[in-house]
């Protein structure tokens, strides 16, 4: 059975485009055909940009004809709706930004435009990236293409579902506590959170600035390496984007695992709340890597149990400040009736933000308040340092750390929506990497007995994305989970 164009990867399509066997216009049309067929059930997108996409595709074909094709030229990509796109509304999944059209592009968008990639649309997400299920979106939930009654994970659930359902070729997401990796695991795709500072955050609508990072969400590891090549690098507009050379990540696509020392953290296995099927799938994947030449070492990350608590103080604290600008004064939603200033603020924000966002603003405001700062925010920052040190110590004994991405396969819609603590634990394995600023990937490593995807997480040391790509590619080349597709007709 030959693959439809929309099912293909970036590198497969690039070969065809280069040979002029297919045009970007044809690919883009194929993607929209697929969107027309499945989007009513999946709801991966908030905004589709069909017209401009077809124009971009035509322009890309023109470039290709002139012989200036680049690896992403003409490839239809989906963008999480918190990355600013000039002239295209960027909602952050929130009512408060429902009509917001930025006059500027995020740096990553400018970089994709230089490559002449095609923008399919803006994908759904938890409101302001606060959630693990894409259910808190003001625009309604996204369904998991593997089981429409289940969540696609979150907060980049729209991007993950769009990739899994072939509603785009690849996508960008953002990851603050697992928001790329956990939905990637839920949807059976590859998702990478780069090192903090590897990719410019300019134009990323901030949730928690010290944790947020943009990364690729793709159908295979090769596409992740390709996207990493073009979104990474220094940016004078982001002081936290590190000025460090960007390697060619595709050189790390090595099919064996010789010499890789894999650390298996004791604290991530056998923990309460982890589904045995998940643990089993991860162990099987570890055996595959071992057979390919990797060595396994048990390591310890002793402060892991405090990570979620620290995260839920630091991230809401930053968010409470980052979201203060949505006050109805300058842009975005404002309560329509005339009131005095104080009421305008209060009613605008009460109406503009959803419940989870308000919950986190309150949490964060509290954690920073006079008299509580030391006990909460400062303490959490100290825990963060300990977690970072745990990893520093661990990486003395290993190159990569392998864990499950999420404790369970994707859960049912509504199952955890009213139980925030349960929801927060969905990110128990992904949060530590954000706190430590480390890069991590999730790749498919199996299916549960119900046929739901399971993800494996590989965490690397700072700026060692290449090693992660190496390990992930080896697993991918020696398994076929990435070829397994949801049966969504």
């Amino acid at each position, binding site marked *: 059975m030959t693959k439809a164009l929309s099912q293909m990867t970036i590198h497969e399509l690039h070969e065809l485009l280069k040979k002029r066997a297919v045009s970007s216009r044809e690919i883009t049309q194929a993607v929209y055909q697929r969107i027309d067929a499945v989007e009513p059930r999946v709801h991966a997108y908030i905004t589709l940009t069909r017209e401009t996409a077809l124009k971009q595709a035509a322009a890309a074909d023109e470039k290709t004809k002139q012989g200036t094709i680049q690896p992403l030229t003409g490839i239809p990509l989906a963008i999480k709706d*918190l990355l600013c796109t000039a002239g295209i509304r960027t909602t952050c999944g929130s009512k408060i930004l429902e009509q917001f059209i*930025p006059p500027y592009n995020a740096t990553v968008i400018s970089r994709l435009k230089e490559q002449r990639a095609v923008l399919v649309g803006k994908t759904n997400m938890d409101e302001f990236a606060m959630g693990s299920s894409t259910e808190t979106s003001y625009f309604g939930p996204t369904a998991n293409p593997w089981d429409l009654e289940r969540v696609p994970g979150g907060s980049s659930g729209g991007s993950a579902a769009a990739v899994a359902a072939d509603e785009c070729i690849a996508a960008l997401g953002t990851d603050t506590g697992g928001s790329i990796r956990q939905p990637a695991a839920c949807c059976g795709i590859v998702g990478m959170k780069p090192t903090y500072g590897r990719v410019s955050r300019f134009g990323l609508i901030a949730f928690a600035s010290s944790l947020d990072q943009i990364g690729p969400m793709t159908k295979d590891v090769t596409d992740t390496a390709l996207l990493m090549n073009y979104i990474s690098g220094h940016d004078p507009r982001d002081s936290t984007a590190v000025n460090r050379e960007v390697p060619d990540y595709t050189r790390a696509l090595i099919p064996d695992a010789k010499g890789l020392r894999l650390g298996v953290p004791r604290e991530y296995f056998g923990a309460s709340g982890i589904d045995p099927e998940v643990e089993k799938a991860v162990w099987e994947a570890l055996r595959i890597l071992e057979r390919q030449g990797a060595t396994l070492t048990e390591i310890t990350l002793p402060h892991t149990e405090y990570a979620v608590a620290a995260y839920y103080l630091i991230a809401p604290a930053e968010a409470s400040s980052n979201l*203060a*600008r949505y006050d109805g004064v300058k*842009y975005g939603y404002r309560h329509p009736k005339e009131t005095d200033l104080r009421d305008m603020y209060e009613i605008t924000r009460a109406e503009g933000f959803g419940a989870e966002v308000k919950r986190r603003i309150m949490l964060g405001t509290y954690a920073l308040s006079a008299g509580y700062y030391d006990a909460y925010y400062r303490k959490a920052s100290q825990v963060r340092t300990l977690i970072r040190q745990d990893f520093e110590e661990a990486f003395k004994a290993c190159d990569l750390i392998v864990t499950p991405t999420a404790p369970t396969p994707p859960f049912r819609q509504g199952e955890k929506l009213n139980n925030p603590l349960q929801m927060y634990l969905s990110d128990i394995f992904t949060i530590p990497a954000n706190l430590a600023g480390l890069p991590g990937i999730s790749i498919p490593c199996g299916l549960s007995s119900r046929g739901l995807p399971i993800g494996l997480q590989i965490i690397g040391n700072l700026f060692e994305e290449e090693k992660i790509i190496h390990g992930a590619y080896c697993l991918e080349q020696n398994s076929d989970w990435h070829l397994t597709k949801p049966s969504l007709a």
Partner: protein
Amino acid sequence: MRYETIIGLEVHAQLLTDSKIFCGCSTRFGEGPNSNTCPVCLGMPGVLPVLNRKVVELTIKAALAANCQIVRYSQFSRKNYFYPDLPKGYQISQYELPIARGGYIELEMDHGQSKKKIDLNRIHMEEDAGKLLHELDGVPADHSYVDFNRTGVPLIEIVSEPHINTPEEAGEYLRILRSMLQYLEVCDGNMEQGSFRCDANISLRPKGAPVLGTKVEIKNMNSFRNVMRALEYETGRQSSLLESGEKILQETRLWDVNQGITESMRSKEEAHDYRYFPDPDLVPLVIDDAWIDEIRSTLPELPREKKERFVKEYALPEYDAAILTATRQLADYFEECVRLGPQPKVVSNWIMGDILRHVPDTRDISQFPVTPSHLAEMLLMVDKGTISGKIAKIVFEEMVASGRMPQFIVAEKGLVQVSDEGALEKAIQEVLNANADQVEQYRQGKEKVFGFLVGQVMKATKGKANPQVVNELLKKMLAG
């Protein structure tokens, strides 16, 4: 009971950079509303601040001049509060780790008779907020408008220790601080335009008491005079409260310039909780010795040093030196003129007398039509006797009006001094003939008449006669 007044001052000085602290927008004053703005200073979603290096340079300059320690690892923090002129809902400032600590400003009270060091607590950098307008084109509006031009303009806050004890000391502290910042070209010191602002903390305690009294913060004082008036008022208010056994409330009070009183703005309970925390969008600021040394090497001579040097090098009275060094521009004007030859004290007299009358703000002296070299030429002409001191005044006014060189004016108007005895004898004889009565009075011993006769001669020669020669000749001729 006798009370001791304890005052601490917080000065906000706007830095003289071309662009804002975290974006490339212009800092120019007085442009159309919201014209100097961009997504960054408007706090739009997803944008990030990038620190302007020049801001750090100017801050270090001020900190070095104020004898502060430069903190090698400092940090920006967010000060969170809601107000429509604050587009992000927080102000980027420095809190736990400011760029400079310690330091002092030395006051000279009683015309230099006594000196006092006022210690500084810290200097930190921050961004300014915007401005709310409650009227449009002079008409009160039912809505408020926001102008974000000032949003993100760089400020430094200079916080003194509570070591100031009188309103006069506060005034002197502000004058010295402002003059220093102007010398450094760090701040233009303009209080009306708000580029130099001051808030005060003031408390009273019984003389000799070990603990501080409850402090009150005073805002809204937009001139040195108002700072002093407000502190004077507040000292009186607090001491009469204490006298009558009442308690001082910890609060913020606003100075009402029209009524000449302070009024409560908010109590301690209503004070904001700013929820400061390190700004994750900005990396910690690391300053190395090389950078500090480089900036130190660019520090100009400061007012105090310059004044002392003027006294020593030019043998000027303290009073003259203080006026001449009040601004760097005036001091430069003086020195450039003196370098060309005239006597320093003569130059000083001309500047303090005639020039300051024409130049209200001496920082603009480079715009003054009489350049230092023109002034020097004119004074040298007086020195050589080419023109008289009296004529010099005429020449000077002509130079002010036309900006021309003194030689041209003197030549064109025939103002060269007449010292030729023959010519003067003739003129004197005519005056003597015409004033026979006065001559007679003089000869009878009424010496006062002599001055009148000199005046008549000067008048007859249109002021061009050399007065010394006239004096001698007149004496001789009257005696003869």
